[in-house]
Every structure is written in structure tokens, then in C-alpha cells.
């Protein structure tokens, strides 16, 4: 990818689907233009010699550690449930997952 990546409209649609975003035709073409501009700039990373360089996912190496396996007080259930946009009793209501029909669950 020494030349800037050209995104096709179909690829923008594909990324939007992966990202769970709906884009109008105009939004899709604007985002295509923006992403191409950004990727053109980002392409300067390809000019760097990274042979044998170990990736660094996080600079927190000085402190990352495992959490103690001990039970702690849970979040306040009622307050958390209160924020669900749709509820039935103590359950969060969502559309039917299996079967694929457009029914509210």
C-alpha cells in the first residue's frame, strides 16, 4: 500500500455494516472522501522500516496485572436496569434474536 488506499463505495458499505452503522448515500460518500484523505496521510507509516520491531499494544507495561479473583459488590441492579431503554419487569426487552423475524420480543 505504497499508494493511498482507494475505497470503493461498496467497501464503505461493507465497513459500515461491520461497524453497525447506517449511512445515507450522502453520508457514505462524505465518509469515503474523509477516510481516503486520512488513509492517504496515514500511508506515511509504510515508509518506516519496521523489520524485526516488536509491536507495542500498550505502554502500560510497567503496571498491567491480573485482577484479584475475589467477589466484590455488584453494580446496583435497580439503577442499572432503570437505564434500559425497554423493559419487561426485571428483564431488558430486545427484538427476537433467533428466527430473524422483525418482531419485538
Amino acid at each position, binding site marked *: 500500500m505504497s499508494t493511498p488506499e482507494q475505497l470503493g463505495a461498496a467497501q464503505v458499505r461493507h465497513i459500515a455494516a461491520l461497524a453497525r*452503522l447506517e449511512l445515507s448515500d450522502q453520508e457514505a460518500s462524505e465518509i469515503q472522501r474523509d477516510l481516503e484523505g486520512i488513509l492517504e496521510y496515514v*500511508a*506515511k507509516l509504510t515508509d518506516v522500516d519496521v523489520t524485526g*520491531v516488536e509491536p507495542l499494544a500498550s*505502554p502500560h507495561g510497567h503496571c498491567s496485572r491480573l485482577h484479584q479473583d475475589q467477589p466484590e459488590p455488584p453494580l446496583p441492579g435497580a439503577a442499572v436496569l432503570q*437505564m434500559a431503554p425497554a423493559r419487561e419487569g426485571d428483564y*431488558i426487552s430486545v427484538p427476537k434474536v433467533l428466527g430473524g423475524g422483525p418482531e419485538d420480543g
Partner: protein
Amino acid sequence: MGDRPRTVCDIAQAVQQGEVTATEVLEWHLRAISRLDGDLGCFQDVRADTARAMAERVDADVRRGEQAGPLAGVPIALKDNIMVEGEPATCGSRILENFVSPYDATVTERLRGAGAVLLGRTRCDEFAMGSSTEHCAFGVVRNPWDPQRVPGGSSGGSAAAVAAGLVPCALGSDTGGSIRQPAAFCGITGLKPTGGRVSRWGLVSFAPSMDQIGPFTRTAADAALVMQTLSGVDARDDTSADAPGTAGLDALQAPLKGLRVGVPVEHMSDDNDAGVNNAVDTAADALRSLGCDIKPVHLETTDLGIACYYVLGPAEASSNLARFDGIRYGRRTSRPDLALEPLYAASRSEGLGEEARRRIMLGTYVLSAGYYDAYYKRALQVRRLIHDEYQRLFTSVDVLLGPTVSAPAFRFGSHADPMSMYLCDRYTVTANIAGICGVSIPGPMTEREGVRLPLGIQIQGPVLGEDTVLRVAHHLQAASDWHLASPPISD
């Protein structure tokens, strides 16, 4: 009210000694907010009633002769991505408009414990993505030096509130410059601590390998006092640094004689705006007369910072923001009869703004099959190079000195192209990529079209180097009056 206490240090001391009450201090600030914030727009939410209750508790402690805490009666505002139990945390986004935090962030809890008075939450760019606070779904924030200009971002509300004297301290978060850049634009002190120095528990994540909470204050001494409360390991954040907290005011006193200060030539670019390099040179001269050894150094990876950041940041953001799907909390679309996946997409598209969507798309792309190695893995390798260059440099210098931003605050709408906005952060992002610390303090002022504007001086230090960068900042402030200038819109 000319000689009332205005800094964190002075307010805390006056309240502890019973010279003023926390309630009086709070009322001064609430009056300033009601007089000025209609024009400035710093606050998303002012919580006068809960703040009054907190102030009364501090006053009761003082009356009983009990320890009132190191930040007794100090009004503090929080960026609206830091959780306060029972209050919203909108992150500047429609998708979280109705969210109510079920618990306190660790920093919130620590500030309460130190006697601070939490008086509200400030506007920011949506999910802390931006350099101008123009990407806040709930309104603009204006720069108190010139209301035609942005306060910087993403923590623009916090920076403008401190600059205008609405609060002596506010917290922000800095993922690529979001504390230091608005501090520079508003003429105040803003510290981005070492990655992990302050717990991120209760900070809404944008890019956890780079996100860090830090304070905005008028002085470096204030930042040191507040950091002593904020810093230190937290069992709830497994990336919090397993090291003692910062040393507070005690760390500021040692003289600077012999301190080695590097000035990266890559930060002193001819492309910087007029006056910027002069401001750094003036600060370097002041440090030289305090006994510092100033020398030019190279930071050759500077030019790779933004490219690296705009792979890593969006990649982490696209993963983090996947949780906003309209199911458990946050906005759900009102369109009827949608199946699950269309419901996710509709809820997200209605709730997320332009910049957040742009970064989610970019992050999804660089992590997608076939592109991962070319973008994400390569950016992580470049991150290692940036990290290693800083590490090598900090064996021969103690701190680095340069401009925070290449220009003063810009006018609204002047960076409509996203790439041009991103480049504002070119001198700040590398600290987040490498996990080191940095502070921005006001340097000599500049002037644009007859308006005086602040310029920021950045002092970067190694991992866990907060005490050192704040000591340098403190001595510079003791030797100059740059941090004492007040903007035209201020209390």
C-alpha cells in the same frame, strides 16, 4: 472581591484555617457561573444543590475541628465523560443523553474524600474526539480570550471554565492532547499524567491504551496538590501504575540547577505560527537563568505521531464504542418493528455524531480482515519506535521543552477538513502513544487581529515524571507572570 483566594492552594488553606467557609467559596463560583457561563457555555450541568450540601459538610468538619481534607472546599468541575453517581455522563453525545452513572469514578470518589466540592460537569467533544469542542452534541464552548475562537478540545469546557475563573480546577481527559491543547488555547496549566498514573475506573473509554485523566488549574502548584489526591494505584483499574502517588507540593521546591532540558528541533518547526518558537525560546532563556542546561535534541519520530495515532486511536475507539447499541442503556431508536441488527444500526446512527462515526469507520477498516497487518500491526510497531526514542532521550535529558501546539486558538469552523484538525495535535500525541507525561503552561502571549491570545509551552517528562515536569513548570511560573494574565471574559 479582589483579594479573595482564587487558587486551589489558597482556597484549601483558607478553608482549612477557617478564614473563609466552603459555602462562601462555592457561592462566589456559582455567581461567576451564572454571570458568565451563558456566554461561554462551559457547563453541561451545574449541580448547585449537591455542591451546597458538600460545602456544608466541609464547613461542619472545620467547625468541629476535624481534618477537612487536602482539597477542603475547593470547587471542582469534571469533564462530562467522568462518572458521578446519580448524575448524567453524556460524553457530549446524544446516545448517552439519558444515561445516569450508577457509580462514582475513582477520581470522583477521591476528590470527595479530599473535601473537594463537585459543582458540575463540563462540555467536551463527543466521546473526547476532537480538538475544538465543536463536536459536542449539546452546544458550543467559547474561548474566554476571544469568543470568536474555540477553547480547544476535547476538554474545552473544563479549560475555558478554569481560564474564566468559574472554577479553580477542573478535570479533563487526554488521549492525544485533549488536556494540554485546550490548556494552551485558554492560557492555563493542564497536566497529562503518565499512562496509568490516575485510575481510569469510571472514565468512559475512548482509547484505553492512551486515555488519561488529569487536572486543569491556574498554576503548577495547584496541579501538584490535586494530583496528590488523584494519583496512585487502584485495584479497579488493572492498568493503573503500581507506584506511589505523586509527591504534591513538597516535590516542587528543589532548585532546577543542573537539570537537563532538551528542546526537540522537530517541535521548533519553521511551519509553526509566528511567535510560537519565540515563546519557547523565552521560556528556555528563563530556565537557563535558573541553572538548567538547555540543549537541542532530536525527536525524529515526531512526524509519525499523527499517522500512528489515527490508526491506534480509531481502532481502540471502534472496539470501545461497540457497546453503545441501544440495548442495555443509552438511546434506542424509536423506529418500530426492527430486527436486532437493524435496531443496533439505527440506534447508533441516530445517537452518534459525525466525528464519532468517522473514527468508528476508520477503526473498523484498519482492524478488518486483510488490512490488520498493513495498518494496525504496523502502527503498533511504529509505536514501539516512538516509545523507544523517548526512552533513549530520557537517559540524556530530564525533560523536553517545546510548544504545546503550533498556533494559538483558531476560529470556529476554520478546520472543517478533519485531517487539518487532527494535525493540531502533532506535538502532543506522541506522549500518549509512548505513555509518558506532559504539562502545558502558558508562555508569553501573542496577538492576532488586535486580540491577545495565549500560547502553550509543553514540558514532557518520562514515565512517572509528573513531579519533575511540575517542578519545572512551578519554577518557570515563579520566575514569570505569564500564568497570571486574565482573559477579558473572566471573574
